[in-house]
């Protein structure tokens, strides 16, 4: 019974909350800039508007272009079902699911970049190349972070792994490793979701875009699905980062869910703060930042080996 309710709340949050995160980020950035900014629920209104619009397809595109948004959304939703939110178990869990998790993201990325190249536009091809290059650096960081947690918890399943900082007693907690992994994962979060300092989501210059340029040709409901999928990706990765950043537990189920929601909004606000405080890095320096994140996670792992 409790399990059914937990799964229900998990699915509800996974489906309903992501656009709210985008809204919080935009609102934080506006407040930092001294503006009032868009309402918190603006992303929902945007999605509703996009669903009502018509679609235009380029003649060079094939089924990949039409299928990509759906595949991306499906992959990210399934990934979202595999991570534990707060101190609760995930609906889908089995040993080795962390590999599936990483490769679901890889699948999503593959289809997005293929759709981009499908249009035959040079801008989109350029964005696709950049996206894949940066993924080469951020995936190892993610895996190394997972390795640290795997070693800490002793299992290879995401649910116990991600909750390890909570369940392992305080004395045996490798704080240095976890701090390093937390910083590394935060950088991965920024990279995967195309946030400053890796990519500016507000830029309108195609030459400087990475993620935005890949979806230039999508319109109407497909664009809406892509935007929604990106928001879910943000939600999922934030939930992962949260486990290492703030492993706290209230004890009582309802309080735990409330705490989780508040913490997610907190992460979104933190992203907003980072976006407001930093400028976007020069493109040739982005690999350096990602390699640094990778090395941080590697260090964390090395320290655990002693």
């Amino acid at each position, binding site marked *: 019974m409790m399990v059914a309710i937990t799964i229900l709340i998990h699915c509800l949050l996974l489906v309903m909350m992501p656009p709210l995160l985008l809204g919080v980020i935009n609102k934080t950035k506006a407040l930092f800039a001294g503006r009032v900014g868009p309402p918190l629920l603006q992303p929902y209104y945007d999605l509703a508007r996009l669903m009502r619009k018509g679609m235009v397809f380029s003649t060079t595109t094939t089924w990949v272009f039409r299928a990509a948004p759906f595949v991306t959304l499906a992959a990210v939703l399934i990934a979202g079902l595999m991570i534990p939110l707060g101190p609760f178990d995930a609906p889908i869990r089995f040993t080795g699911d962390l590999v599936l998790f990483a490769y679901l993201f890889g699948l999503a990325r593959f289809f997005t970049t293929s759709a981009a190249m499908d249009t035959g536009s040079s801008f989109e091809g350029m964005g696709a190349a950049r996206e894949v290059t940066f993924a080469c650096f951020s995936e190892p960081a993610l895996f190394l972070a997972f390795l640290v947690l795997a070693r800490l918890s002793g299992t290879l399943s995401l649910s116990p792994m991600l909750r390890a900082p909570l369940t392992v007693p305080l004395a045996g907690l490798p*704080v*240095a490793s976890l*701090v*390093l992994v937390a910083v590394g994962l935060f950088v991965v979060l920024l990279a995967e979701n195309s946030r400053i300092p890796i990519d500016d989501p507000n830029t309108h210059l195609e030459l400087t875009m990475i993620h935005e340029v890949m979806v230039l040709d999508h319109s109407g409901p497909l664009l809406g699905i892509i935007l929604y999928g990106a928001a879910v990706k943000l939600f999922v990765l934030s939930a992962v980062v949260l486990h290492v950043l703030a492993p706290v537990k209230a004890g009582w189920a309802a309080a735990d869910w409330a705490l989780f929601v508040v913490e997610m909004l907190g992460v979104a606000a933190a992203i907003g703060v980072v976006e407001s405080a930093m400028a976007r890095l020069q493109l040739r320096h982005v*690999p*350096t930042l990602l*390699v*640094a994140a990778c*090395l*941080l996670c*590697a*260090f964390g792992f*090395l*320290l655990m*080996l*002693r």
Partner: protein
Amino acid sequence: MITTLNALLVVVLLINLFVLGSSRISALIQAVAVQGVVLGVMPLLAHGRSSLMPGLLAIATVLVKGSLIPKMLGKALRDAHIKREIEPIIGFMPSTLLGALGTAAAIGLAAKLPLAADHAQTLIVPAALSTVFTGFLLLTTRIKAITQAIGYLVLENGIFIFGLLLIEAVPLFVELGVLLDVFVGVFVISIIIHHIHREFDSLDTRRLSALKE
């Protein structure tokens, strides 16, 4: 005490990586200054007993490494009117990766050397070896004279870290003598850098290659 010490040593290791990857020389000088301050605090942590010796050493180290030496290097930098290091032969990113590999090797090597009982949990030996390796890398791969001097400083920092294991064995006045030597060494190096700049109008050590077989 030990976990705080280990956390600080991790900070030192991260500064090493930053120093290997950065090209802005003033950032390098500040990073080494921060490293010096962090190192200055460590004698107080490495030995739980509070006594005069570690305290004096801490103050002297923070003063010299955190303030005096960076000031001297900053002055040399301003005299030379340069801001950035030229892309070295190995490249900044490969240097950082090489430094990370060196750190991993240092951790492996340190595991082979037996440690006394109350030092066994600390990261002092791997941190020391890795910092020495970083300093070496900077010295050998960088092109501007002032960055080579910074590499020398990082090398000395690495040796200082190892010295933490020996605070009782090596008497205070020898540690202070070492510190003084580093200070005077950097002083002399700064003077030479000034002369290099005056003579060649640049700090590019590739110009210093007239003498060869």
